[in-house]
């Protein structure tokens, strides 16, 4: 087990292992996404109240899940990087941020498009949309910090501290926004807040969630491989790799 982590921590082994894993993840992601899309867009019945417009949920809800999941992943790998000084953990955290920000943005846009038929307006200060917006700011701040510090090692470590501070704050922000929202508009009963969702609608949603997770893993591995090559460009094995390629 320890040997496995040790190997994963070394850029060279990571590069090779990731190269072998990417096709598997990518194919599984594609299959699940096709299944989820067919199940969600074709097979699932229209909602009794929202009609067909509820189908945007199959994009919105998994994006929102991913936006949180990726932030937590970033914080966990940041903690690993700070405590055990694992090089790869830094790279994973840094490579995750733009993907997470994209999912957050997607969740916001799809949420506001959903809001148009539901609420009659593109934007309401709904608790979930608001905390998603703040999450987007957190992502952008993290990315801004990484870009602003020139020394790459320092940038990664500063980013790690920021991600950890952020992850402590995410629940506080979430609950305060929720409380603020209920106070201003009364208790909200969202249809999907309850588990009373039909199985024919739920299964495609879970499939999409899994597909999005695999999509993230594929993307982060591709990005991390590139980052490894850039960072290790002066090392022996990268030179050999390039010469071999030529």
């Amino acid at each position: 087990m320890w040997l496995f982590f040790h190997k994963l921590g070394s850029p060279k082994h990571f590069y090779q292992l990731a190269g072998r894993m990417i096709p598997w993840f990518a194919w599984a992601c594609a299959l699940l996404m096709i299944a989820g899309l067919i199940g969600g867009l074709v097979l699932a019945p229209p909602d009794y109240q929202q009609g067909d417009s509820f189908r945007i949920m199959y994009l919105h809800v998994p994006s929102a899940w991913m936006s949180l999941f990726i932030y937590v992943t970033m914080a966990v790998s940041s903690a690993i990087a700070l405590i055990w000084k694992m090089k790869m953990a830094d790279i994973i955290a840094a490579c995750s941020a733009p993907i997470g920000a994209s999912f957050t943005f997607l969740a916001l846009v799809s949420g506001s498009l959903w809001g148009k038929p539901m609420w009659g307006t593109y934007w309401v200060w709904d608790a979930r949309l608001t905390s998603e917006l703040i999450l987007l700011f957190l992502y952008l701040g993290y990315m801004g910090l990484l870009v602003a510090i020139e020394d790459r090692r320092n940038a990664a470590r500063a980013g790690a501290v920021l991600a950890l501070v952020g992850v402590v704050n995410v629940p506080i922000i979430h609950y305060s926004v929720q409380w603020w929202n209920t106070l201003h508009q009364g208790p909200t009963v969202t249809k999907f807040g309850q588990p009373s969702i039909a199985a024919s609608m739920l299964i495609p949603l879970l499939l999409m969630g899994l597909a999005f997770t695999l999509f993230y893993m594929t993307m982060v591995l591709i990005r991390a491989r590139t980052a490894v090559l850039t960072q290790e460009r002066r090392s022996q094995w990268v030179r050999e790799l390039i010469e071999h390629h030529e």
Partner: protein
Amino acid sequence: MTQLPMFKAFSTLLRRDLLLAFRHRGEMANPLMFFVLVVSLFPLALGPDSRTLQPLAPGIIWVAALLASLLSLEGMFRSDFDDGALELMLLSPQPAPLLVLAKVIAHWLVTGLPLIALAPLLGVLLHLPAQAMPALLITLLLGTPVLSLVGAIGVALTVSIRRGGLLLSLLILPLYVPVLIFAAGAVGDAAHGLQVGAHFMILGAMLVLALSLAPIATGAALRISIG
């Protein structure tokens, strides 16, 4: 080492920072002027009607206080970073979080406290009802230290970056959201005569949490910035 030098280091640093601040009284006044100016812009933009201003008053005062605090943050570690004093502090055997705490407290005493003293005046300008004044003062007293403590983390992360000011606001403002929600909410509720004890407890919880966590994160961030 015994207990004594640790607390002595704390008080020495606190006194040094306060002294430095009083030697630069002009700089101290800037965030305050900003606070007053921003608040007095709102009646000009919204009209002088007290019925418009009154419900907005808690939010306006709190947003202005938040921005003024953000503006004053940048200088917290700047001069010590430039002349190398910060590096020496971190190399000293004293625990970094304690030294950070001393600096944050000094900073809050010279920027946060005068802000609180000015707030009732601005409340009067915006027709905030008298029954909301105690709530305004208590929320500022509990909330602005949180702003300084959380802000210190961001300043520590960006201190080595030239022109890090804009980045600092991007890093810090999202983290200020909970304080803003509960503080402005408490003042607004107090203006309607509602009970606000629960709001104070939540703000108190945030303060305790920030007091125990932020100095550690700031210390770590300073170490990284100095490299």
